[in-house]
């Protein structure tokens, strides 16, 4: 049951990433309202810091990886190339790069280098291993609209699935609430680094996402619990929630301007939805059927936010500037997932859209490169000329764009954050493994060095020692 509850996107479908795209990160709520805070007689909770990121870059020496095939996700594949990064930033990428004297030099002969992989749809930490009821923290399935809950308040940094995802080359994830609810709550965009608290993982400057879900899941969960029981009930649920949020937003915006009378009562549910209406949050929309995605585009038009995410309506999505977040080949486990095809990502690419491959799975996230490879070859076999660079973008810069982080991560370019993966061979080969993973310049994983293979506390006393008979 749980599996079905949090499985999300079909091949025929995709996440509609909604929200007005802005070039600069949204101001933190505290900063936005600093003036109001001074003007008010006493400060209010809304004006104080809201669960800020405490992420700090891990200090490291500069690193030069040379003699490798560098896949930049900007159209280049440099044979015998080098990449230098220092203080968490990429300094140079090219055929010849000089190393500073203090640089750690990595011989990349026979190896490939790509940007760190980004999974924009994960439930790591909120549905943590070993998957008992005790760790089932991903669906606040007590009301169809729970915009007030935040995934980061469920996220368990000791989830033993995290080191496995790191070993698969993942450097950034969006951890999402499940898809039981029409509106499931806020996502957490996280640097995938070993950490004690979720705050230490929160991607600095990243805006929040809002999880929404179409179709069967909310119907199944709430059909006999007061509704919605139908797809029209689903639509009515989104509309009434956003209608209330419109009023809430207006009241607060007005009060912030004139400070007349008492401030409006704070409502956490509507506060989150108002942030979507203001364009400060993106929507990650679980949706399978093409016709339902078209309904969601209309919903966004009604409330003035813009959708950015199926092969059937690839033209519509491309026109809307919507990205589409899909699986390579999961299909058929429920009625709305029966129409899935392996060429979904390729067809969206062909239509001028912005596809990306997500895992939505603690196993799939360990091999996101293979998922992209499967989708690439499915397209090529169907006669759609997908390039290696395009397929690499499906798991790097395209998800970065969807999360509003493409100016910071997702490609290997000077100035970008040094999220870098060294692969044992072609990352689109099933035989290749990540051998080194750098997150913000920090070597968070090294296949050859147990000192750089993070383990969680959960594993203490459980994992067999290498070579043991047990």
């Amino acid at each position: 049951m749980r599996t079905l509850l949090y499985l999300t996107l079909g091949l025929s479908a995709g996440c509609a990433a909604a929200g007005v795209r802005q070039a600069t990160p949204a101001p933190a709520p505290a900063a936005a309202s600093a003036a109001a805070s001074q003007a008010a007689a006493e400060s209010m909770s809304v004006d104080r810091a809201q669960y800020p990121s405490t992420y700090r870059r891990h200090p490291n020496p500069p690193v030069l990886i040379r003699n490798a095939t560098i896949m930049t996700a900007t159209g280049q594949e440099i044979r015998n190339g080098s990449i230098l990064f220092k203080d968490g930033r990429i300094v140079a990428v090219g055929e010849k790069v000089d190393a500073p004297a203090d640089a750690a030099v990595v011989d990349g002969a026979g190896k490939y280098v790509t940007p760190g992989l980004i999974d924009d749809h994960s439930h790591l930490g909120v549905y943590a291993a070993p998957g008992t009821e005790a760790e089932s923290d991903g669906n606040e399935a007590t009301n169809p609209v729970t915009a007030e809950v935040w995934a980061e308040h469920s996220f368990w940094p000791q989830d033993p699935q995290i080191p496995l995802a790191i070993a698969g080359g993942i450097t950034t994830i969006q951890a999402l609430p499940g898809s039981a609810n029409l509106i499931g709550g806020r996502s957490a965009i996280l640097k995938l680094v070993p950490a004690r608290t979720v705050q230490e993982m929160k991607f600095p400057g990243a805006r929040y996402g809002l999880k929404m879900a179409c179709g069967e899941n909310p119907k199944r969960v709430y059909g006999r619990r007061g509704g919605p029981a139908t797809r029209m009930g689903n639509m009515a649920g989104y509309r009434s929630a956003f209608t209330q949020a419109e009023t809430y937003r207006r009241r607060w915006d007005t009060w912030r301007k004139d400070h007349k009378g008492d401030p409006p009562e704070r409502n956490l549910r509507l506060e989150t939805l108002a942030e979507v209406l203001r364009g400060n949050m993106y929507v990650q929309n679980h949706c399978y059927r093409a016709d339902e995605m078209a309904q969601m585009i209309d919903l966004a038009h009604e409330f003035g936010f813009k959708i950015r995410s199926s092969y059937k309506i690839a033209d519509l999505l491309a026109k809307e500037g919507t990205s589409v977040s899909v699986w390579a080949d999961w299909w058929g486990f429920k009625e709305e997932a029966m129409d899935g095809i392996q060429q979904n990502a390729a067809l969206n690419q062909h239509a001028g859209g912005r596809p990306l491959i997500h895992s939505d799975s603690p196993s799939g996230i360990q091999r996101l490169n293979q998922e992209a490879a499967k989708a690439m070859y499915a397209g090529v076999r169907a006669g759609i000329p997908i390039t290696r660079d395009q397929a690499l973008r499906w798991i790097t810069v395209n998800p970065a764009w969807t999360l509003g982080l493409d100016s910071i991560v997702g490609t290997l370019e000077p100035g970008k954050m040094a999220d870098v993966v060294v692969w044992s061979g072609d990352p689109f080969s099933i035989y290749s493994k990540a051998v080194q993973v750098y997150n913000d310049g920090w070597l968070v994983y090294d296949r050859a060095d147990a000192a750089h293979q993070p383990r969680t506390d959960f594993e203490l006393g459980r994992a067999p020692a290498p070579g043991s008979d047990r």
Partner: protein
Amino acid sequence: MIAVLLAQTIAITGGTVYPVSGPKIANATVLIHGTGVAIPSDATRIDAAGKWVTPGLIDGGGQLGLVEIGAVAGTREASLQGDTIAAAFNVTEGINPASAVIAVTRIEGVTTVLATPTGNLVSGQAALIDLDGATIEQMVVKSPAGMVLDDSESGKDYAGGSRAGLADRLRRVFRDALEYERRKVDFSRAQIQPLSAPARDLEALLPVLHAQEPLIAYANRRSDIATALRLAREFKLKLVLAGAQEGWEVARNIAERRAARARGREGRAHGDRHAQLAQPAPAGGKRRVVWDGVGPGAARRHALPRGNVRRGRSLRLARTGQGGERGRVVG
């Protein structure tokens, strides 16, 4: 469809053939439904130059054909509700030859699957089916092909909530089945203590208890695998471990049991094939693969005695001239 194919002689020529029963053969011919070693002039030729030719893949356990859409109850046929010891439940008549999943799986190279029941403690009887055919009769290769046991976390829910209770319940059921067999007359006269399962389910367990049919035990935890091995030893069963996620941790025990079987101490060598599929390295072992024919190219290159090369013989059999059983890949 089968009838049409049966009438055709097909020659797959020029490919690198992996017979599995022997080493790979370059530039070989596989003749399907032919007689002799020559390619008949009316044969349909398939040029496999530059390609690999292997046996069709076999999925050793799953609900293909029994469940079309997991979330739609109307398409689920794998589980009999309300019958903890569902030994008499055979899934065969629940197979849907029109399931959309069948063709999609076939195009990926899978030709045969074991359709297994799920749920309950004893889930029921599995059927081996070909992914080809318009009717159940055309699809079924072997039914029943094994008795499925849920020796796992979900199985114990049907035995009072304890793994020890699961083992105890099974022992009682197995003993009652043997008792029922010995005392059918007493049973019909109601001169027997109440049995722990209905007579039809006990009857259905007898081929398993006489090692004529395998017990397919779904077990993942180390201790569950050990329980399955222990029960198989006690009742001299042919055991197939399925799932076996922690099989690697007890690979030696599994292999020892298999070796014991191979030496003939506990009946015929047969079991643990599923464990091999899931955990290929430790358990080892060969699958018997019989092809529908070895072509003249292979006969020439391997200097096979001409009389041995004929339809229904594997390369190995063609070499030795022994056996010659015709058929499909059988596990």
